[in-house]
């Protein structure tokens, strides 16, 4: 099977600082891949590089065989890269339904004049979008908040809004940046369930950053460990869990077991 996303020899410098060094990644359709590493290792930078927020200094990124280096973020997103953010970037004055509706932007078929004068095509498509949004909100268990402003929602629900929004862009790969940060154990179990369900229902590949080993072990079939911008170990989760380098990076050199 040809890879969905392949990143080769990606290196990025912020000024003189090497943030990511010689990073390689291949995601095949339907895979769940985890990226772990201590704080400041450059995990979110890798997300930002692939999604086009920053342009890598060196290296190639191909999405379904198409070179996406230097493309605008929204263009890359509409090609099938959906993402969530570590520190919740929601639109604070908007309600949940609007969040999900707006993410359909790249699928809009009417032009500006259709929007100004309310063309029939606009009406029919917006009805479709609304229906699809309600379906997504039901899936993520946020449909009861549909017309509430997002800032009034509990934290776990806000995370789910972000995921619903990302899924509305019809991604082929979903990038999740610490999907369980700040969640209670109950919410965590629920999140595992949701991610599994999204993975099965939509058949998307998932690439996630996570700190909680248990979560990564349960979900991912392949894990990369990033330390100071370099991959120090990669492989199936069981292997990574027992890799001495990984344990060292996370827990320090002294034997603590």
């Amino acid at each position: 099977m040809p890879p969905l996303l392949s990143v080769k020899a990606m290196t990025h410098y912020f000024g003189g600082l090497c943030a990511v060094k010689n990073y390689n990644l291949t995601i095949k359709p339907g895979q769940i891949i985890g990226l772990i590493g201590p704080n400041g290792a450059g995990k979110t930078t890798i997300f930002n590089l692939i999604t086009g927020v920053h342009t890598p200094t060196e290296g190639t990124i191909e999405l379904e065989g198409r070179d996406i280096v230097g493309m605008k973020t929204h263009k890359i997103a509409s090609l099938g890269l959906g993402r969530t953010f570590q520190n919740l970037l929601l639109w604070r004055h908007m309600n949940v339904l609007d969040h999900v509706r707006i993410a359909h932007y790249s699928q809009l078929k009417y032009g500006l004049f259709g929007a100004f004068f309310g063309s029939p095509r606009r009406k029919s498509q917006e009805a479709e979008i609304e229906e699809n949004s309600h379906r997504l909100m039901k899936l993520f268990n946020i449909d009861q908040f549909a017309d509430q402003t997002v800032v009034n929602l509990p934290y776990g629900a806000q995370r789910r809004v972000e995921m619903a929004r990302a899924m509305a862009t019809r991604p082929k790969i979903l990038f999740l940046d610490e999907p369980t940060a700040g969640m209670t154990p109950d919410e965590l179990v629920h999140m595992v369930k949701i991610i599994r369900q999204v993975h099965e229902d939509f058949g998307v590949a998932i690439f996630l950053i996570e700190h909680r080993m248990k979560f990564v072990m349960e979900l991912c079939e392949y894990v990369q460990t990033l330390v100071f911008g370099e991959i120090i170990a990669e492989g199936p989760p069981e292997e990574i869990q027992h890799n001495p380098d990984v344990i060292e990076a996370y827990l320090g050199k002294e034997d603590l077991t």
Partner: protein
Amino acid sequence: METITKFKSIFYGVPMAGWLLGAFTAVMLEYFLGDPISYLFDLPKIPVLFGALFVLKHPLMIPSIIGYDIVIYILPILLVAKITAPLTNALASVLEKTPLWLSTIIHLCLFYGIIDTWSGINDYRLLVVKLTMISIILTVSLNVINGYQGEFSCSHPGFMALGAYASSTITLLFFANDKIFGAALLPAAWGPWAFPFAIIAGGAVAAIGSLVVAIPSFRTRGDYLAIISLAFMFIVKSAIENMEIIGGPRGMSSQPNYASLPVVFFWTIVCIWTIHNFVTSVMGKTLNAVRDNEPAADSMTVNTRKTKMTAFMFGAFWAGVAGGLFAHVLRYVNPSTFGLQKLAEILAMVYFGGLNSIYGSIVGAVSINVLGEALRPLELFKWIVIPLILILVMIFRPYGLISFTEINMKKMLRPKNK
């Protein structure tokens, strides 16, 4: 308090059509019986703005003004609204079954009848109504940029000037004999038919001009963009002042009298309609997304540059239209009109009425305009009272009187007897 609630509850069952009918009766009553009734109350003539101007000059006449207002406006409106409620509710339920646009147009026709009759009493009222409607266009369009898109643009008077000069140039060149362009090139009878095109051309020129502000907005936001837009306003103003070919600082005059009340009303409705359509569409909602969090909007496939450009060009287009109408209502423009004073007025209307709300903008434009006219006899103190009100609104409602609310025509026009 209780009596007020009780009094209000009497009128819960009155639909929009009922209130319009009541208002229509009141203005008709004034039209035919206004003079005798005003003499009855010892008033020299029909008070222009509900007597607000008159009262400030002659405080002793307050009782007669109140009496006049009650007899002419309040009593007929309340009585007719209440008495005809069963009838108008029946009408409203019939109209509810028809398409929304038809029922909206019928209500608008009735509304137009009201303002046409009301402003038919004297020229001053007519001017106030026209200028208020132009202010509505300006306010609603600035709300697209400052409210929905969340930039702080100060260039609206500049866009307005572009529109005013572009459309005036067209009408003066082709349809009027004047000092700057000489004799008319086309027969004057064609003028009213060409006027919409002149207005649209004015809007288009303003929209193109807005690119000067829209393109920097890709990279800067907030205070810096505000300064750029302010600079743009001054550039437009001084450019016009220095161009002798369009009159320089003396301005342009003797525009043909094309901006009659129905024309201004038509453009106002079209403006509100298209902007409402736009901001409630998914495409228009992206304006809010870019305002609230640009990186997030970008990652959700929203083309942020296109969105910003659309907001600026669309807002500027309507500002240009308003400018064109303004020039033809006053039949005179000069560059000093489009300065800081105008900017302050428009900004006050937007922020007073409420951000992110067309409804709020209409309320803001109407109230600041009417207040400004009503307090005219206070002269200098007017500019103490109005800003004071603005400060109070900002303290108690930081986003303006009515913010983050959209017009819901269906809800507004539905029968109220259920």
